[in-house]
Every structure is written in structure tokens, then in C-alpha cells.
């Protein structure tokens, strides 16, 4: 059935588009401003030629990957266990996963730095950020995985695998994880965008991540800060599109699985 849009519908859509696009266009124009009536790409050229830009971007990328690995190693087996063996623990998991939403970042970082201490390769390097980032990303990772596990009949698939002779490792690797692909990709992308954009933890702990670099740049080079904002927005946007498409691709395949 073809959807018919009325004038009112179109007006709302256009208004929403304007709300999102106008600031981007203005930021884009501002990032191209070179003073007076001159426009060009000097802010972008300057930005890309700065070593700190690449260093902070790669650091944020690295921390994203590390956070994703830690989150999956801890969260995936725990959530599969809860779904299969201890569904009564689900409310507790829900509660814990939502805590980072209600605890202010500054309180969280204060508590974590007191609680988590360790060798110098961990506490005196940016790797330490993976600990607060794990907690920061927990609600997103948990939610994405929970949706995937609920869509799948984990119990029946696991028992089917067992009845065919498979052990836990093989069932998780060859049956459950491939069918959780879109949930895992969703979790990866959400964790990635969260970590890339995180400022408070990195700033308080004095690590020079991409978000801190954007903030520092904005203090004295405002057109470059605008260019940086656009670039980071673009990176986030590309990853969000990835979430959308990965979800669509698997939706049909899982239809017959329940």
C-alpha cells in the first residue's frame, strides 16, 4: 500500500529536516570561512596536516576497539547465560546496565579511579579509559544485545545444537553469534560512537582523545573547530548508517527462526 502524505505531514517533515540540516549547513559554511568574504578549505587543510589530529583520532579509534572487545568478552557470555540459565537475573542486569545513565560522569570517574587501580601500563596510559568507557557504553551494548537475544529463540537453538553433539563453545561461535550479527554490529557501532564522542572522562584524566582535541582546538581556532565537528559528525553518521543497514539485512533471515 502506498503511503499518502498530506500537506501537514510534509510540513512537519520539512520542519524536522530544517531543524537538523540548517545547523549543519551553517557550521559547514562557517568552517569554510577564511575571513572577510573569502571561503576555502584552509581550516580542513590545517586540521588534516596537524599531527595531534591524527594522534587523537587514532587514540579514540584504538580505545573504541579495546572497549568493544572488553564489552563483548564480558557481556556476551554473561547475557547468554542469563537468557538460558538464570532469566530471573534479567531485572538485575537491566538495573545495572542503566546505572551509567543516572550517575553523573564526574561522580563515575571519581568512583572508578578510587576503585580501579593497577599496574602503570594500565593506570598511567590511555588504556585506563577503557574501564570508564566500558561502563559508559554498557547501556548501549546491553540494550543492543538484549534485543538480539530476545529476537532469537536462544534456548531452542542451544538445545538443538547440543542434541546434535555440539559443545558450548561451538554453539556460541557457530550458532548464536552468527545469528546475533546485527545485534553485535549495532552494539559495536553504538559503543564506537559513544567512545569517539566522549569528553569528560578523557579531559578529567588528562588524556588527549579526539573529543578533547576538538575542545582544545575550539579554544583558539574556531573555524577549525567547526570543521572538526563536521568531520566527527560525518564519522558518527557513517557508523549510524551501518547500524541501520546491518539491522535491515538480518531482519528477514531471523523471521523464520522463531
Amino acid at each position: 500500500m502506498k503511503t499518502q502524505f498530506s500537506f501537514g505531514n510534509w510540513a512537519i517533515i520539512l520542519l524536522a529536516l530544517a531543524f537538523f540540516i540548517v545547523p549543519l549547513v551553517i557550521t559547514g559554511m562557517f568552517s569554510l570561512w577564511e575571513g572577510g568574504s573569502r571561503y576555502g578549505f584552509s581550516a580542513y587543510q590545517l586540521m588534516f596536516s596537524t599531527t595531534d589530529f591524527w594522534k587523537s583520532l587514532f587514540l579514540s579509534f584504538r580505545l573504541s576497539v579495546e572497549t568493544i572487545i572488553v564489552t563483548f568478552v564480558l557481556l556476551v557470555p554473561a547475557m547468554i547465560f542469563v537468557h538460558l540459565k538464570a532469566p530471573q537475573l534479567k531485572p538485575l542486569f537491566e538495573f545495572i546496565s542503566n546505572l551509567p545513565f543516572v550517575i553523573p560522569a564526574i561522580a563515575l570517574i571519581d568512583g572508578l579511579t578510587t576503585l580501579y587501580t593497577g599496574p602503570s601500563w594500565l593506570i598511567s596510559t590511555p588504556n585506563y579509559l577503557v574501564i570508564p568507557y566500558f561502563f559508559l557504553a554498557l547501556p548501549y551494548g546491553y540494550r543492543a544485545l538484549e534485543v538480539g537475544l530476545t529476537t532469537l529463540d536462544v534456548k531452542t537453538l542451544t538445545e538443538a545444537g547440543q542434541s546434535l553433539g555440539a559443545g558450548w563453545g561451538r554453539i556460541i561461535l557457530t550458532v548464536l553469534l552468527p545469528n546475533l550479527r546485527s545485534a553485535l554490529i549495532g552494539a559495536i557501532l553504538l559503543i564506537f560512537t559513544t567512545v569517539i564522542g566522549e569528553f569528560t572522562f578523557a579531559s578529567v584524566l588528562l588524556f588527549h582523545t579526539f573529543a578533547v582535541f576538538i575542545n582544545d582546538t575550539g579554544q583558539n581556532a574556531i573555524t577549525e573547530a567547526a570543521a572538526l565537528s563536521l568531520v566527527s559528525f560525518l564519522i558518527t553518521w557513517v557508523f549510524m548508517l551501518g547500524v541501520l543497514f546491518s539491522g535491515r539485512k538480518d531482519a528477514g533471515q531471523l523471521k523464520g527462526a522463531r
Partner: protein
Amino acid sequence: MLQVPGVTLTGISKIYGTRTVLHELNLALGQGELLCLLGPSGCGKTTLLRILAGFETPNSGSITINGVDVTQLPPNKRRMGMVFQAYSLFPNMTALQNVCFGPRVRGTGTRAEQIAEGERLLAMVGLASHTNKFPHQLSGGQQQRVALARALAVKPDILLLDEPLSALDAKVRTQLRAEIRRIQLETKITTVFVTHDQEEALSISDRVAVMNEGHILQIDAPATIYRAPANAFVARFIGAGAVLRGEAEGTGLRFGETLLPANAAGALPRGANAEMFLRPEHVTLHGHEAPPGALAARITELTFFGSLTRIKLALTAAPEAELWADMASDGTEGFVPGGNVFAAWSPDSPRVIQLE
């Protein structure tokens, strides 16, 4: 049917909290036998099947397969194939990959042999042209056929079917149950089939075990279960029919002022409380002339089943006594609700069971 015992369950009990769901069950299956576990919801039949599969651990008792005790073995170490009620195919694999999963895990044969065997099994369940389809591209009936082929691919000692047809529509269900029986006879595999559908159980089993509240009440061939139920529950649960409670009196059952003919009552002490079970196919109806021993009755309801019509009756002398009679639909002309008829049955037909 029981010849060489393939599977033996001895004293199996299962307790959840304070609730005992299985009470020291004993069961033995012959090699190549198809046994149906039949009973109402919550009777423990699925729990028993899951204990056999290894998904549940019994609180007491033991399970042996071909003489080997498997009670403590985890499910993946038992040689059992299982088809589940819910569609259980792995969504990320094609039909052929699903079927080859078991042999691949168990390392049976080379990759080429596994594929050839998978294709043979898919052909056996009528899906030769669907090998490369994913589960979401198959209908419910086709998915269960693939699940059956997948369970057979591991060459199990015992095939476990947990209400595999309950999610399917009536026509597909009838077709598939006939195919399950054909394949089971072809492969001669010992099979346990759980169902709450008595028609399903009676039509495909070598023997039926009727369960209620964690007990096996009767294990027999389907015809015996139907014709000679061991107790009141089995008689009520299997098939349709009238259940009339009264007192034994000679070769009949005293129901109020009426003596209902039932030779089986003769075996009971006079005055013993008993229940009489009378199948609809044993009751004949007569419009005008009453044969000897017939009782006057009034038609209260007619239900059309196609070739057959089931007529509900109330005896004139004891209106609370309800009977059913099956008639060929072609011969029901003149029989209408409210009409008066005479109901008769052979005194040998009713089953009479003394109440405790």
C-alpha cells in the same frame, strides 16, 4: 511390540521445588519401536522427554540405552536426535548446512560424504530441491522436515519428537505425521513422540503411554488403549463417549431408575460404585420400532463431521444420563434436536470400571 529393550528408564523422578512432576516412572522401549507419550498439558510428558535428551537431570532413577547408563551424560554426549516443537533450524545456515551440522560436529565421514548424506536425507523428507534455502525461505512444515532430516543425520540411537506438529496447520500436520511414521519404519529407529493430540498418538504409534500428573497410567497398543482403557482417566481422556456413574447390578449398571445393559458389570460385586464408558460408535439409534433392550431417548444436539454425524441424547427415564451415537451422515434424515428415538447397544460394548 517390545522385543530387544533399546531404552530403559528405571524409577525416574523429577521434583521442582516442592512439586513432584514425575513419580518414579519405569519405561522400556523396544528396538525400532515408536512410543507416544500422551497426556494433558502439565502431565510431565515433555519433562520425561527432556530427561531422556539430557536437558533435565532426574532427581532419582536411571536411563540406559542399549545397556549403557547415560543418566549422567550431557546432551551432546548422548546419541539422540531431537525435533522440537518450536522451529529450531539455525537461521544462518541453509537446509543442507543444518542437516550437515551434526555429522560435522561429530566428525562423521568426509565433507563430501556428509554432504551426500545430507542431500539423501533431504530427499527422503521430500526437500531435494530446497537444499540451499534458508529457514526463512521455507514453510513451517518444510522447516520441521529439515529438522527431522537433521535429527536423523547424526544416526541417533533414539529419535525424540517434542510435539513437532503442533505449530502446523491441520492438513500439513496429517501429511507430516504419516511421513514421520513412514520414515521411522524405513529407518527402524527407536522413537519417542510427545503429543497431547490423541488422534496423532493413536494413528502413528506402536504403543501409547498415557500420562497424568507425573504417572504413566497405561502403556499399550493404540487399539487396546482405545478399547480397553485401564482406568477411568484413560477412558475419559481417549476418544469420545458417555461416562455414566451408577451401581453394579447383575449384568447392568443401575442409573437412577434405569438399568443400563453392561455385561462387564457382572464381574463387580452387587452395589459396587462403578463408571460405564460407552463409545458413540457402539450406540445405534432407531426411529420408531424399539428393538429389545433399547431405551427411549431424546435428541439434544447434532454435530456434523462430514461423513459422520455425532448425535447427543438424553435418556427419557433419566435425562441427566447423556449418550452419544455416531451415524453415517447420509442416514440422519428425520433425526433432529428434540426428536424422540430409541438407543440400543450390545451389552458387551460398555467398559465398566469399579470406583475406589
